[in-house]
């Protein structure tokens, strides 16, 4: 990715830019806090931070409408915050507490929200992709005009079931946007070491699925591509692929020694392509906000994140009996149509 020129003032309102700034900053500060809590031993196990990739989910959520669905892999905290889930509930799930979205039964990789149409949080690479097409199938069957954002990474893009799903989604014109978040490393394996054709947006060509590459460090570019993709899906033309080039600043998970890339590479990306700095510059150069305004937002976000950490620490541990709940239904249920 080439270094971005000084931010021009595009045709976008101050209000909109401030929303993106706030939403991306919330994800970043939340993730930084999660990293701290992990270091303190309050979060155990696996924790995959989204820092650096914030523009992807915030841009696409700006293109989504009420009732649209989203499903993703294990690097999921950003998606949950971007679709409006409560930071307290997310953080408390990370710490494995009763106040977490899954009452501590899911953990970092496995959280859900019926209210926000967030279908998880899935820990197996690529396994959520057919589920996403299934969600889209159900929407098409119900005829409700909804679209499903099915996120997966550049690593998952080599999984067989992704192509099984592409075929079916195209065959049945399912309203699904396949979002390939290409952060260029499948855990510790650079794309060039694992992938014959780096142009992942072309991977749908064999199935007749249109795809395009998007600058994932530019929230406006993501939003514009998202709107195009959603329009395509909603008009009944079937699936659409967005390969969103992005970058994660932190390791794959908390235990990643990051020996597979140079410190300079990460540093360069942070300095030249940071998605939050990008919006910040636009806000300041376009005189949409003052340094003071942005400081006030920083303070507000800091409080939300601090409160979520407090909530996550103070929420009680789940009762042992939870182990035996929600394995099977207690009573029969009705079909949804």
């Amino acid at each position, binding site marked *: 990715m080439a270094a971005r020129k000084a931010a021009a003032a595009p045709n976008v309102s101050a209000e909109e830019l401030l929303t993106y700034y706030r939403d991306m900053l919330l994800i970043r500060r939340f993730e930084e806090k999660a990293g701290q809590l992990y270091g303190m031993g309050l979060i155990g196990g696996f924790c995959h931070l989204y820092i650096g990739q914030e523009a992807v989910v915030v841009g696409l959520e700006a293109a989504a409408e009420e009732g649209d669905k989203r499903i993703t892999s294990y690097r999921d905290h950003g998606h949950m915050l971007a679709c409006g889930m409560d930071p307290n509930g997310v953080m408390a799930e990370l710490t494995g507490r009763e106040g977490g979205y899954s009452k501590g039964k899911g953990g970092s990789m496995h959280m859900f929200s019926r209210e926000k149409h967030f279908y998880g949080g899935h820990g197996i690479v690529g396994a959520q992709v057919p589920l996403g*097409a*299934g969600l889209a199938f*159900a929407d098409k069957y119900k005829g409700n005009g909804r679209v499903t954002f099915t996120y997966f990474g550049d690593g998952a893009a080599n999984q067989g079931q992704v192509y*099984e799903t592409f075929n079916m989604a195209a065959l049945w014109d399912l309203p699904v946007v396949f979002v390939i978040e290409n952060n260029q490393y499948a855990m510790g394996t650079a794309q060039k070491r694992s992938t014959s054709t780096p142009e992942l947006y072309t991977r749908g060509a064999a199935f007749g699925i249109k795809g395009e590459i998007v600058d994932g460090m530019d929230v406006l570019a993501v939003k514009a591509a998202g709107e195009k993709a959603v329009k395509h899906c909603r008009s009944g033309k079937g699936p659409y692929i967005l390969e969103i080039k992005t970058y994660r600043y932190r390791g794959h998970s908390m235990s990643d020694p990051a020996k597979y890339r140079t410190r300079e590479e990460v540093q360069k990306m942070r300095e030249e392509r940071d998605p939050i700095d990008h919006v910040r510059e636009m806000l300041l150069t376009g005189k949409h906000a003052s340094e003071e305004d942005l400081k006030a937002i920083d303070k507000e976000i800091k409080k939300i994140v601090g409160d979520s950490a407090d909530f996550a620490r103070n929420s009680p541990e789940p009762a042992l009996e939870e182990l035996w709940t929600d394995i099977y239904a207690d009573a029969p249920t009705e079909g949804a149509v």
Partner: protein
Amino acid sequence: MPRMTMIEALRDAMDVKLAQDPSVLVFGEDVGYFGGVFRCTAGLQAKHGEERVFDTPINESAIVGMAVGMAAQGMRPCVEVQFADYVFPAYDQITQEAARLRHRSNEMFTCPLVVRMPTGGGIFGGQTHSQSPEALFTHVAGLKVVIPSTPYDAKGLLIAAIEDPDPVIFLEPKRLYNGPFYGDHSGKSVGWAKHPAGEVPEGHYAIEIGKADVRRPGSDVTILAYGTMVYIAEAAVEQSGIDAEIIDLRSLLPLDLETIKASVEKTGRCVVVHEATRTSGFGGELIAEVQEACFWHLKSPLQRVTGWDAPYPHATEWDYFPGPDRVIRALHKAMED
């Protein structure tokens, strides 16, 4: 009362549910236009439409994965895996997505899904068309595992499975599709037309999942069997004259331990019979359960008759297949002490 083969009874169950509940969908390889490799879905597409009964590509993983997504939206997918031997690519979706969605989402999303598959041998299918993989599913909390042995049970259990709020693995003993099988592979097969269990009521009825059926009351020894082995046990009892009580488990998970316990407490002896390979087979679990529940009632060591620990053979199928002779030997052994 109408008489049906197991194939017709299964078809009738799907027909009843498709007519009753618009959230029910039936799909899989060759299921729609062609009507299924064993004809279980013949005519259903013509009657209920291509939108509800349809063909899929040959992609077990994504078939089940999409069904999980549909089910998470409240649909009631009833999918066919053409042979149980083909289920392995879908094992990840079944065990890690379908079975656990309810628990890890704290019941926010559930998975009312049925995966039907013809199971077992006796049709000269060789090692990839004869296997009995039930133990791979009984090992997974969150699944139910059902295996009928009569047309009557097949219809009632399949209706119950489709109505069940949790994922059900529905194993269909393919050797029984057209008639009972008493182990005489060279003799003329007898169809369901003359068997009392071939009488199948019209319309809706459900058999509770988790209830075993005492197929033959007896006082000397208890035989625990399911699927094709119920008839092999009947043949063994008839040929040996031993007054065995034959229990058709019908549901392996949940297991009807009450019925098993009552019988073994009465007889004090027990023989477990299944087609699947011996080591880590479901028989091991049955024996452990009986030992824990009935130890002080036992008069002799528990016996197991199973397939051998070898790939399912082609030429030597009838040496592998646990026929009446081997069951009789086990019965005599159980009666020794």
